[in-house]
Each structure stands twice: as C-alpha cells, then as structure tokens.
C-alpha cells in the first residue's frame, strides 16, 4: 500500500491545521461555539487530546457530539429500554440496541432487522430532498446488518391542511418518498399521515425500513482486524450536507467568497439501488468484514464508529477520497453528508474479489486506509497528520446530560378541561337523541383530513414490487413474506397520537404501543419487538424534557408489560418554532411474525351475511378524541385508559381464532372509534352492513356518542361466518374477552346504523376518498 509513503517531491505545507501545528499554537481561537459545542465540551476535548484540537478534529467532535449523533440529552432515558427487560424478552433478540439496527430471530433460520429514523428538519427546508434522503438513509442502515431491505413505511406529520405552506411540504415530501422509494424496488407497505397545526413549522418525516437475512449472514459494522483495508465506495464525496462546518473552511481558507455549502443532502436513488445490490453481493461473496453506511457526520462517523465498535484503530489518508469537487477542504470531506456512500472493511486477501464485484456494478471505490492494532484514529492529509484521536472518545464517549425537568405549568389546566366540563362547564355538546346530527358527525369525521382515505398519497408509492406484499395500506399493518418456501412473514404497524401525548405523555406512549401491537395482532401476526422514533421539542426546555422522560418511561414500562423488547430507535429533538414545541410524538413501531402469510386476516368485510362482533368494552372516553377535535375543535382532559394485560389477552384470542380459521376479517378500533372502523371495514371490499348500537349502550352504560366515537382501547371489530358463530363466541367467552354481536354484513350497497342513518356506500366512500385529493391534487 502506498498510502503513507513519503513523496519524492519536496514537501510543501498545504496550510491545513495539523496536529503538530495544534501542539505549538495552544492559544489559537477556535469557533467551537459556532459549531454547537459548549465551553465545557470544548474544554473536555482539549483534556482528552492534551492539546487544542486541530480544525479537523474540532469538526469531528462537534458533529459526533451533537444531539443528533450523541443522544446526549436522551441517553439517560434510553437506557431503560435495555434495563426494563426480562430474559424471556431477550430470547429472540440477536442484536439489541446500540447497533445500526436491532435484529430479531423470527424462526426457520431467518432474522429481520428494522428501524425508523427521523428526517424532520431537512424536510421542512427542502421537503423533496429531505424526505428522499430520509428513505435512503434508513435503507442503508438496514443494509449494514447484512440484510436485504424488503419494505419501507413512512410516518408523516404535516401542519394544518388549509395552511398554504402545508401543500408545499406535502407535495415535496410525498414526491420525494415516491421518487426515491419507488426507484429502490422496495414496497411501501404503510405508514401514517397526520395533519395538525402544531406541526406547521415542524413537519415530521420519519422513515422506516425492514430487512431480512439468514442467521449466518448477520454482520456487525466494526473494524477489528489490523491490516484490513478501509474502502470508501459508492457516490463521490461532495459539498452537500456540510452545514455549520463551513465555518471551519472559511476560517482556514480565504473566506471572502459566497457560501457554496448547501446544508441539505441530495439523493440519487439509482446510485442507492445499485449500492444495495452491490453490498448484498459483497456480503454473499464473504469479502467484507463489515460495512458501515455514511449518513449523518459522514466519514467522521464511519471511521470513528467502525474503529470504536471493533476495539481497534485506523489510519486514513483523506486525500484518497474520491471527490466531486476538488476544492473541498479536509474538514469538509470529513463532515460531508453526501448520500449513497458506504465504508467497507476488507481483508487484504479479498481485495481482488472486492474489486471485481464493485466493478461489475460500476461502483467507484477508493482504498483510504487500514485498520491498526492501536486505540487511535489517525487521519492524514497527504503527509500531514490532521487527526490523532482515541476513536471511542469521538464515537461513543460523548457528553451525557441530565437536563432539568419540569412539570409543565399548563398541564393541570389542560387535564382538567375535559369533554365534560369544556364549553363553559356545560361539556361538549352531544346529539345522542338526534340521529341526523350523529349521522352528520359521522360523515364529518370520516372525511376529515386525518380520518380520510390516504390513497392520494399511498397510491404514489409502489406497494407491489418484490411480489411478497401480503398486506399494505389501507390495512392495519403492512405484511411481507420472507420465505417463499414456507410462507413465513413479518408485519409492521406504527402509531403515535400527539394529542394523547400532550395530555399525558406517559399514557400517550403506552397508547401508541398498544395500538401498534393491536394492529399487528389483527393482521394475524404475533407481536415480537418494538422500535421507535421519538419526536419532541427542545431538550433545553425543562417542560419538554419532562414530556420526554414520561414518554420513554411509558414506552419502556409498556414493553415490559407486553413482554416485547425495544430493539432500537431514534430521537429527534428541537422540533419547535420559537418557544412553541410540537405535541410530543413518539412513533412506536411493532414488528410481528406470522408462520404463513396465507393465514393473514383481511381488514375489511368480504362476504355477505357474516356476523359482526365487537370485542372489548366501550367507555365514555372522548378526551383527546377525533370527535373532540373535528366536531368541537377541543383538546383537554385525559387520554383513554390502557390495559396492556388485556391487550395481550385480546391479541392471543385473535391469534387462536385465526389459527382455527374463524375470522373472515378483523379491524382495530382506535381513532374515531367504532365509526371509523365500521366505515373502513365496509370500504375495504365495498361490502355494506347493518349495525346496531343499542346493545353496546345497554351493556357498557354509554351514550350513542360514545358508542360511535369513543376511543376506548382494547377493542377490535371482527366478522365471522355464521357456521363459525358458536365456536367463535365460545372461544371469546372462555378467554374472558367481552364479545357482542352488533351487526350483519350485506351486499345491498348500503351502510345502515340503526336509528342513526342509512347511506349509499358509494356516497360515503366518495366523501372518505375525496378529501386529500381535493386538498392537494393540483
């Protein structure tokens, strides 16, 4: 290797800030505050190095110690996901938290890895590229575990639909996901779209990917064998995504020119698709020890993490990096977040084979360094040493904060203002005795932007590619087959309700978990593991920190109760404009496993004359509900109660009924309660029904408003063929699941709710389907 040989030509200093220079110029003023480092953080870097950092080192530490990369405000709370677990919960966990993505054993020698990540801020500045590169980033994370990505989903939160800026963000984000995701050949199997003015200046764009692998193909991104080569491959390194680091560039060089450093990355899905196939072939040929993706913090992150993970060191020649722009400074190269790049650790003896594969895919590469048997990361710029640090101090031993926490000043008043006392103590008005008013509310709700059909968005995504999609939007969960031989498959559902979390972040997180868990169960899969993407305001606001503390505790406690582990996740802070934070939005994703996807349960009615049963109990729980929002514009009170042990029982009952072939359909009840579920069940295959509410009201002691719109948890709507009736009811009763027949399907083209209304299904469907297109088409 000719990486570090002295050149024959006469040595000319390049003017970069070297470690030698740093040692003799301790007094040099460094722009650490502009790079987001605090005084004590800068002092600690000086202490670690025993000198001031070079500008390259400063760039690395500043990015790696940022909130986004270091989790410095959230770390002390995230620990509980690893602590509140039993041995039983860990049984199927092959890789837990801390790696690029968790890995779960799903049986038959198969494993899956899944993760959700935020790309919120870039998606507000530049929605198209922000969303596109969000998809690209999460897919590369999955790839680093040795898995073939098999599906994507996205969780979107936009501002108020009527705000003119919302259309800009919606169009950009949806186009970006469509453009990038569709080009990768990964089916988009579901997600969420929510509109709320709290997200006006802070849209949330979370992207989830799931991958499958054989147990023996599991890879961990680490560099542990001295002598192995460090190879950067994929796209060339450019000036995108550099952001604040240009401060250093302008400091080092002439700073009179205009800034040419865009802070949002630009994606090329074709390059990513080729990279996916190339990496899978490299794994298959067993020529790489590990592969790390380059996302946030680029080469700084990849080199320090690979070395730190492997307990080794690395020597890197930065001038060997292939660049799109020859004028890039070393600091910029270290920080660049150019997309579609990977760093491979390749044993020397496999270099030829490695080259053959990347050449086949016409992927560019450069050997930029090698792994060394020393706890040190050395980076040279030509002959000059610009970085000399212990890799662990960059990658893993960043600062950890216990931020101040304060119970929000508004919280008590918010909780006290429930639906029974709002409207000057009168309570939100209910039209229990007025069928036509209830009917009007029903239509108003199912055609409101959040409850309306999301087809205008999801029909822009390819849900078919791969040929393994068993369930996708508008079903409760997305399901894909993993094994073509046996039909073994996985399903994923994600949920978050910011309104509930604003009312009670602890319960809100549990509610999101319960809903995602139930959504997986009603598809016929067994819930196995959890991932999350925690979207919050500023951690420097003690009230936000309280929300975060409560939500993480709720999620960890909930997972322990359900007996399913958290395998990984992501935190996004600073989602606020001025002092106003978004509603806490902890997106919770639950992974389920199904032994044969042929057994999956449809989410709507298909056959005439089936009985419709409501499982679970309905309470008067309308605080924070869609009804309170859409009909009354109200938010206050306390969210519905969660009973996770009942959720577990309910999921087991659904599984048992499904295994005996008793269920023609199953649909979860959540937002907008029974009304929404009934509407969606009829729309799915255009099958009408007659529904009666009186028995719900009598048995559960609730009024008709609650029967229709309450969001009580632990409820599922199922349809059962008449021949299976006795068996099904017996099964529920034996398991202590409240079961009540509330209707019958019929093919008359109508949906009738007794004493409320009878609609032509086509009219109702048009109202449900038309909303988003009306708002955003054109």
């Amino acid at each position: 290797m000719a990486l570090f040989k002295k050149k024959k030509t006469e040595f000319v200093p390049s003017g970069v800030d070297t470690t030698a220079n740093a040692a003799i110029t301790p007094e040099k003023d460094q722009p650490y505050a502009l790079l987001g480092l605090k005084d004590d953080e800068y002092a600690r870097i000086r202490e670690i190095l025993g000198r001031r950092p070079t500008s390259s080192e400063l760039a690395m530490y500043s990015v790696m110690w940022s909130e986004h990369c270091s989790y410095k405000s959230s770390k002390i709370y995230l620990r509980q996901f690893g602590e509140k677990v039993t041995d039983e919960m860990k049984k199927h966990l092959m890789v837990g938290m801390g790696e690029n993505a968790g890995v779960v054993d799903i049986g038959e020698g198969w494993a899956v890895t899944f993760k959700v990540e935020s790309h919120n801020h870039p998606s507000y500045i530049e929605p198209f590229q922000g969303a596109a590169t969000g998809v690209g980033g999460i897919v590369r994370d999955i790839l680093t575990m040795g898995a073939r990505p098999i599906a994507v989903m996205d969780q979107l939160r936009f501002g108020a639909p009527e705000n003119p800026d919302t259309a800009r963000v919606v169009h950009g984000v949806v186009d970006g996901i469509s453009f990038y995701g569709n080009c990768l050949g990964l089916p988009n199997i579901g997600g969420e779209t929510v509109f709320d003015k709290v997200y006006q200046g802070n849209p949330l764009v979370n992207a989830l990917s799931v991958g499958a692998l054989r147990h023996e193909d599991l890879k961990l991104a680490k560099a542990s064998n001295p002598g192995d080569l460090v190879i950067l491959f994929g796209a060339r390194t450019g000036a995108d995504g550099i952001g604040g680091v240009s401060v250093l560039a302008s400091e080092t060089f002439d700073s009179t020119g205009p800034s040419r450093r865009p802070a949002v990355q630009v994606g090329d899905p074709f390059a990513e698709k080729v990279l996916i196939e190339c990496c899978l072939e490299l794994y298959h040929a067993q020529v790489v020890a590990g592969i790390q993706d380059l996302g946030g913090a680029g080469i700084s992150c990849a080199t320090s993490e690979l070395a730190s993970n492997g307990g080794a060191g690395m020597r890197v020649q930065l001038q060997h990096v292939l660049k799109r722009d020859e004028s890039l400074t070393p600091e910029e190269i270290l920080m660049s977040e150019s997309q579609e790049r990977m760093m491979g650790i390749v044993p020397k003896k496999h270099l030829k084979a490695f080259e053959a594969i990347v050449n086949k895919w016409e992927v560019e590469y450069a050997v930029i360094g090698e792994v060394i048997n020393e706890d040190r990361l050395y980076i040279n710029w030509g002959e000059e040493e610009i970085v000399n640090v212990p890799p662990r101090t960059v990658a893993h031993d960043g600062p950890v904060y216990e931020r101040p926490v304060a119970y929000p000043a508004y919280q008590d008043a918010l909780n006290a203002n429930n639906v029974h006392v709002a409207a000057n103590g009168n309570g939100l008005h209910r039209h229990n005795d007025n069928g036509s008013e209830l009917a009007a509310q029903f239509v108003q709700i199912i055609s409101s932007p959040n409850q309306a059909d999301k087809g205008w968005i999801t029909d822009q995504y390819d849900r078919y590619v791969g040929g393994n999609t068993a369930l996708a939007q508008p079903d409760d969960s997305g399901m894909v087959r993993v094994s073509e031989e046996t039909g073994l498959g996985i399903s994923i559902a994600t949920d978050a309700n910011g309104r509930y979390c604003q009312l009670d972040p602890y319960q809100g997180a549990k509610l999101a978990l319960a809903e995602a868990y139930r959504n997986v169960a009603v598809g016929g899969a067994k819930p196995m593991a959890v991932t999350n993407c925690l979207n919050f305001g500023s951690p420097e606001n003690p009230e936000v920190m309280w929300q975060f503390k409560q939500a993480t505790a709720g999620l960890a406690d909930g997972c322990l109760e359900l007996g399913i582990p958290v395998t990984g996740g992501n935190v996004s802070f600073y989602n606020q404009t001025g002092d106003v934070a978004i509603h806490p939005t902890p997106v919770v994703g639950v992974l389920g496993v199904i032994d044969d996807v042929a057994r999956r349960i449809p989410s709507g009615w298909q056959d005439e004359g089936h009985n419709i049963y409501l499982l679970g109990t309905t309470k008067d729980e309308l605080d924070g509900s869609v009804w309170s929002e859409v009909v009354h514009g109200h938010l206050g009170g306390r969210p519905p109660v969660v009973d996770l042990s009942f959720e577990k029982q309910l999921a087991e009952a659904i599984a048992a009924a499904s295994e005996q072939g008793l269920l023609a359909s199953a649909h979860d009840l959540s937002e907008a309660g029974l009304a929404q579920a009934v509407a969606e069940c009829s729309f799915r295959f255009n099958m009408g029904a007659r529904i009666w509410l009186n028995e719900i009201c009598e048995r559960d002691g609730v009024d008709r408003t609650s029967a229709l719109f309450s969001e009580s948890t632990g409820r599922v709507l199922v349809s059962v063929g008449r021949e299976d009736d006795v068996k099904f009811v017996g099964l529920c009763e034996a398991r202590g699941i409240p079961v009540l027949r509330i209707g019958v399907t019929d093919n008359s083209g109508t949906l009738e709710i007794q004493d409320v209304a009878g609609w032509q299904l086509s009219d109702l469907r048009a109202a449900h389907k038309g909303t988003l297109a009306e708002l955003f088409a054109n």
Partner: protein
Amino acid sequence: MKIGVVTFPGTLDDRDAQRAVRIAGATAVPLWHADANLHKVDAVVLPGGFSYGDYLRCGAIAAQAPVTEAIVKAANGGLPVLGICNGFQVLVESHLLPGGLIRNEAQHFICRDQKLRVENIDTPWTNQFELNQEITIPLKNGEGGYIATDETLKRLEGEGLVAFRYLDGNPNGSMNDIAGLRNERGNVVGLMPHPEHAVEPGFGPDTAVAMRSGIDGLKFFTSVINALVNA
C-alpha cells in the same frame, strides 16, 4: 423451456418476473445488461424498474445496452419478447414498437389495480386469453402516457396492433387508452401494467372473491410456454 429475464442496473421487478416464469412452469434465466449473450433462451422478458436511473429518457440508455442490441436482433428474427413498464419503454426506445411514453397526466407516480381489455390474442404472450377478455393487473409507473403521431395511431388501430386498452379510467393520459402494443409479427409485446405482479394468489390485486387473489397476469407466461411448445 428457458425464458430470459434481463437485469439492467436499476431494474426492480426482475426477481418478480423470474418468479412469474417459474410459477408458469418454465426456467428463468437471468440476463445481464453488459452481456450480449442470450444464453439460448426461448423468449425474453424485459422487466420493470428504472434502468440506469432512467436518466436522459425512460429506457433510452437501456436501449443502447449490449444485451438489448442482441435482443433487438433476435426479436427481428422472431424471438418472443415481452416488455413490461420500463421494459415497454425500452422496446419503444429500441424501435421494436412505435410511439413514445411520457409523464403521467397527473404528473406523479400512480400505483393501482388496473382493469384492461385484451384486444389481440394472436401473439405468443396473449394466446391463452379470450378475445376482449377483461383482466385486472397492477399498474405502477410515473411515465406511462402513451403517445404517437396520428398516422401511427391510425395504423396501430387499423392493423389491430393495440394489444391492451385501459378500462374504467385512463390512468396516465395515454392516447386512445392504449395500455400495450404488439408488433406486426406479433412476437414483440409491450405494456405499462405489470402481469408479473398478478401470478400468485395472495400477492396480486384484490378480486370479488378474495383479497389479493388476482392471477390474471399468469396467462402472459403460460401463453408463451404454450406458443413455444406448439411452435
């Protein structure tokens, strides 16, 4: 029976097309873009995707690939060739089929279950259908709007070369609701919708009978096997 399935960099539905070939009862042979050797296959499928990123124009770069040159030559000699979606675009760019494909009228990607009428069954890819049979297979594309000159359209219609026409709504603004074409000889067929995504119960479009049970696309592949067996 060996049916080649081409992979260009950026091809996405190649594994799906291979699966469809297998389900129909033939052997799928992967063909690589840079390799002009067709490995003695009896027919070729050009699957969907974004070949070479579809930069320049959809299918334009793929039309220049070594494997495509070999396919064009073989097609002119009578080899059955089916182009699906991006594959259809490649056939048009290679002048095996006339006209062009432009951005959908709605200006965005559309994925939906699409009803079609099979209007020509005298091809190796459609002989198992009834004439004017209505079928439903998935459609998913961003640039599927078929265009041609008046003269070409008149010829296509007059000579019965429109193989598939959209029903229940034209999804992309295609002229004359054209979803797919055949060449004069009949061996080359191209269409925007995806038959390979409607070959296996449980993973196809919804039908009146059951969720995702539609397998109307399978007949494309059984047709070619039938044609080759009886050739």
